[in-house]
């Protein structure tokens, strides 16, 4: 005799089957290792490009989720890391594209993709236990960074903090490899002149 199935049971069965079909890209153990290695650099990248800690939190989680759902040809750590940064960059741009029509965003954004600073953001900018000179220097550094365009911040961060090659940067920010060098050069010169005008020097 055929068993009667209710609609909710059918839905549940279908959803479980779908969920089972959609296994993540890597298992939990590998994910944890990968996360420990990449979460902090990714958060810093998102935060320093957007200037918003809460947004960096959200986009970081979404980036990992999207990466896990991807079917990628390769699962080496370096390849995954670059792909993760690529997803995060796309999410950031989508966020800005949506935000351009939002009056609240317009009111808080400074025109270069930098967003309203929360209390937590302010704390991250000026930590405790620093001398007055260091605090001044760091706030000048931050201000100089805010004056750059989002793409310039992306390029500089990827090149100088992540140590990514021009080919990797071009994949992450969707630009031609050949155009990375002049763009990076201009961004670096702009940042350096902004810093020099405020009297900031090399720390080491």
């Amino acid at each position, binding site marked *: 005799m055929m068993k009667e199935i209710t609609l909710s049971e059918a839905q549940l069965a279908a959803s479980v089957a779908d969920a089972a079909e959609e296994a*993540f890209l890597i298992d939990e153990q590998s994910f944890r290792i990968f996360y420990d290695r990449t*979460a*902090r650099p990714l958060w810093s990248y998102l935060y320093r490009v957007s200037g918003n800690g809460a947004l960096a939190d959200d986009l*970081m989680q979404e980036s*990992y989720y999207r990466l896990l759902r991807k079917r990628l040809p390769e699962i080496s750590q370096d390849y995954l890391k670059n792909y993760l940064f690529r997803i995060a960059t796309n999410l950031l741009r989508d966020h800005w594209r949506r935000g351009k029509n939002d009056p609240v965003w317009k009111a808080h954004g400074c025109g270069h993709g930098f967003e309203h600073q929360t209390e937590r953001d302010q704390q991250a900018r000026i*930590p405790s236990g620093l001398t007055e000179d260091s605090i001044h220097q760091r706030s000048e550094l931050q201000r100089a960074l805010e004056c750059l365009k989002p793409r310039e911040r992306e390029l500089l961060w990827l090149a100088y903090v992540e*140590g990514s090659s021009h080919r990797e940067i071009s994949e992450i920010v969707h630009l031609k490899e050949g155009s990375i060098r002049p763009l990076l*050069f201009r961004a*670096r010169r702009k940042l350096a002149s902004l810093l020099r005008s405020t009297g*900031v020097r090399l720390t080491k």
Partner: protein
Amino acid sequence: MNVCGCEKEALVIEAVRCGTWDDALRTHAARCPVCADAALAADLLRELSDLDNTQVTLPNGGLIWWKAQLKAKRAAAERATQPISIVEKVFCACSILSAIGLLLWQWSSISAWFALLLNGLHMNSYSLQHSLVEVWEKSSPIYILCASALLLVFSLVGYLVWTEQ
């Protein structure tokens, strides 16, 4: 050295990132404008990165994994119920369209019913009963069937909307 770069630029950046300066490189960085800019920019960004590493607390990997799983399951359930909700919407749209069609098609008869009913309302209860009987007698069985079907469809749509909410 060319306009956009210097061959020692990579070494300078690496020195800033890892703190592996030597005297020759330091002298070069002081003289070369490209390397000086690169050193300054890399130094600033490294400092900000160090600041984030020490000041910010992030959720652990387990929590992110669990949230991702939850989200994937929710997305799967949404996809599974999508055909059902589409059928529901199509059914509602068809019902409304058929009701409008029927109203237009039988408008003269329906307006006649209403006229009779309104006449009855203006009179006493006996007359109302009388006019209802008249409506019943004047209507052909097909109209009564259609009206009943409409009522049934509207109740069903109302029920579906209510359960959805």
